[in-house]
């Protein structure tokens, strides 16, 4: 049965009012509390026809709108998932697929930015393999390896390495990672690099807005033109309102940060929420920190994430998606980079509008679970 048949309409009917009246008639015959099965059928048909009507109104007259036998949201979702699926498997075949593969649910402004057309794909494939180009200093420091791993490694090795990394106290090397990664972001953006750049941007926003903006631009430009999100992000006002109250940074910095955070969407993209959280820590704003924590309640857990063996869980074949290794590692890296950036920031405090108090010290305190705003009490 076509949706039109279900509602007893003429085939191809697209007048919203007519559709709704037909729905009401059928609804009375199949009340949701009395005939759930019948109601579901009617409702699916109605929802399909509603969007069909909208589509007809918005798009040009001839465009086809398809449905299969089992129309309705479910079928459409499944269809689009299937396309996605094929694409994902193609991607899986690719050698340079890395732990930073990323797609997100929910917020459409943060859509999967992977290219859909083969040409674009080629472009990316042509991008220099990260492996060869990473700045590898001569030192024995584990840190460059971590960068390397960020693009190529397996999750477990990676977690182990990053764990080591955060224990390392080599601020110079950390600073080097930060700038190395940033350089890479400007160069070619390897797969996943746009998110790295974005995170760097969020890290920089409260410290150096111009720099953050430049990095955001890099991310933006790396996207295929038709996939670029609208920069007037939804939600910016809300976020700004809170930040306005809570952050004693200058207007530009606040704005940049709000903008970047808003882009992620609070529910849609925990990574950015966590980035913001970390920044709130840097800004020594306990209240903002609390506020953000609601959105990423288990931050400490993420940070202390330990790799777990998978048990009897089904695996999703229907969707190409983020490797969570990438996600966790990003959190880790944010942490690492935070330390790096603040270490750099300390060299020229005047430029960054931070006071003499060493951010690094504060972060250390945070890492040890202490309140960074409390002066150290002698025992």
């Amino acid at each position, binding site marked *: 049965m076509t949706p039109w048949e279900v509602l007893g309409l003429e085939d191809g009917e697209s007048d919203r009012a007519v559709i*709704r*009246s037909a729905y*009401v008639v059928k*609804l*009375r015959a199949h*009340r*949701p*509390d009395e005939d*759930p099965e019948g*109601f*579901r059928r009617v*409702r699916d048909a109605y*929802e399909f026809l509603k969007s069909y009507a909208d589509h007809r109104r918005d798009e040009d007259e001839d465009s086809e709108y398809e449905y299969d036998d089992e129309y309705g*949201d*479910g079928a459409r*979702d*499944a269809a689009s*998932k299937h396309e996605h699926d094929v694409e994902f498997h193609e991607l899986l075949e690719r050698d340079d*697929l*890395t*732990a930073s*593969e990323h797609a*997100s*649910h*929910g917020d459409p402004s943060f859509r999967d930015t992977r290219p859909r057309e083969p040409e674009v794909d080629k472009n990316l494939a042509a991008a220099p393999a990260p492996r060869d180009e990473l700045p590898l200093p001569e030192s024995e420091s584990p840190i460059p390896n971590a960068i390397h791993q960020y693009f190529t490694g*397996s*999750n*477990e090795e990676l977690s182990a390495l990053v764990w080591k990394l955060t224990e390392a106290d080599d601020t110079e090397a950390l600073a080097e990672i930060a700038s190395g990664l940033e350089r890479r972001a400007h160069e070619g953006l390897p797969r996943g690099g746009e998110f790295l750049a974005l995170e760097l941007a969020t890290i920089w926003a409260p410290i150096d807005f111009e720099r953050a903006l430049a990095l955001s631009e890099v991310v933006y430009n790396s996207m295929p033109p038709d996939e670029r999100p609208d920069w007037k992000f*939804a*939600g910016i*006002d*809300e976020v700004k*309102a*809170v930040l306005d*109250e809570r952050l004693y940074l200058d207007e530009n910095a606040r704005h940049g940060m709000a903008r970047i955070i808003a882009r992620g969407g*609070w*529910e849609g993209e*925990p990574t950015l929420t966590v980035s913001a959280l970390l920044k709130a820590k840097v800004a020594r704003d306990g*209240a903002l920190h609390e*506020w953000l924590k609601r959105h990423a*309640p*288990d931050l400490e857990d993420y940070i202390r994430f330990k790799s*777990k063996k*998978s*048990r*009897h*869980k*089904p*695996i*999703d*074949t*229907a*969707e190409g*998606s*983020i*490797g*969570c*290794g*990438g996600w966790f590692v990003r959190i880790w890296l944010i942490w690492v980079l935070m330390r790096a950036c603040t270490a750099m920031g300390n060299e020229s405090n005047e430029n960054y509008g931070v006071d003499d108090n060493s951010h690094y010290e504060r972060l250390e305190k945070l890492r040890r679970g202490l309140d960074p705003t409390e002066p150290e009490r002698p025992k």
Partner: protein
Amino acid sequence: MAHPTPAGPCEDWYDEPWGAATAQADAKDAGSAMIVGIDLGTTNSLVSILRDGGPVALANELGEELTPSAVAFAEDGLLLVGRPARDRLVHDPKSGCAFFKRDMGTERRYVFGKRKLTPVECSAAILRELKRIAEIHLGETVRQAVISVPAYFHDTQRQATVSAANIAGLEVARVINEPTAAALAYGHRHPDQETQLMVFDLGGGTFDVTVLNVFENVIEVLASAGDSALGGEDYTDELLKVILEKRGGSLDASGKARLRQTIELAKRGLAEHESVERDGVSISRADLASAGRHLTARLRPIVMRCLRDAKTDVSELVDCLLVGGATRMSLVDTLLRETIVVPINRSVDPDRVVAYGAAIQAAAISKNEAVRDLILTDVCPHTLGTEISKQFGKDSIQDGFFEPIIDRNVTVPVSRAVTLSTMHARQDKVTINVFQGESRFVKENTFLGAFEIKGLRHRPSQKHPGEFEVRYSYDMNGILEVEVNVLESGKKYKKVIESRPGELTPAEVEAAVRRLQPLKILPRDLLPNRARIERANRLFAELAGTQRQELTHRLDAFEAALESQDGERIRIATSILDEFVEPLFDAEAESRPETK
């Protein structure tokens, strides 16, 4: 006074002056086996029924329709419920608690002296009281109720509410979302209207927003969003914090409780006045706005998300119905008028409309002709999904991901499916873990249940090796049915996820009922007398000098009269006590929401 008869709820328990005047037999009118509508609020609860085709709220013996959602143990161990409990909490905060709705669905245990209660049991005590009130009016045992819950309650919290009802001896005919109930009451009153509405429900402890369409007697909810830990009480707490900080020094628990009460009343006064001064505490609207600014900042994103989910633009909204006592704050007005820009509609009684809607739903379930034409379709505001692992790269697999199956804000009943597969060729078994929530990681979502399927190991020449379809069907009562269909063999597995964490076994219900059982009912335990004593106790804490002595005399005489169980003596002592206490309480009575 006659000896009390704790046996039948329909008997007249009380002599004048509280008397049986309110105990009319509404049951005749309503037909037998009445289903009542209950709004179990964070701050206030009430019960309502449909009478002469319209909903009415039922009052207790004190003539009050709103029962404060508070429980407390009196010195003699009796469980106080409602106003007496709330009054007692002001001078002895450790004897019980209020706002337990916020802890529904958690493992919290309250300890009051030697006694322990769970949030579910506290709620059960309130529900039992409401049941009692309804029975006085109906003259028959009430067995079924429609109970409202915040739209944003997740399944565990809903289940906890159902358990509370079971303990109270009520069967839940339907759980209805609070804003939906409000809309239903509105739609019932304006049956022929065609409109697109937003319901903005800011109660004592929860915030819900719902966008819906009303047309041709159909009430169609498009989307709901909310925060189940944001309400008027949080504003009071913030004010308290600010004022305590300003004052410096420290207050003991009961001092704090008294100050909080003063602030609460002052806050309510701000609905009418620019600033209010009360017992040495003076606050202005600006103070309230500034103390609660983080709270206010949380409101708008929720509204926007709801509009987005409803695919509705603010400009399409004809009205915004204000529900919940906390919408009386002027800052809500400002937010809606200036920031969100939506026309405000205050035509519904913000304290009662949810219960009215529940009563209408109850009538609909019992096929009452008066509401037969009304059809309601609602949504489930949380996403339902399953746990999956994801393969990433060649050898790395991570579990703990949430795969949405039924997206939030789709109309229920609904059924949706996804196709999943085993992780590797030799895997024979998978566990389907069912979760509800919005996070991409299951550990941040709410676990609802699990089951296992077998026989998935790959075999030669299979078309869909290891693949299976997982179908979720969600019905209007929040019952989720999970069906797994193994593609290769065509084998089907079915499970109804009804019993969720938090559901009580019959034995547990039984035990809880016993725990809540009051001791023998003596005259002093009857609600009006209890209320009188607690109120006098509270006043005692506030008065000083001769006034306090005066109160002591009268109160002692009253208690002695109760002890004697002599009706005439109690009557006299009552009027002597009331004569003194009532005028002193006028000020507070004013601030109680009025019946419309």
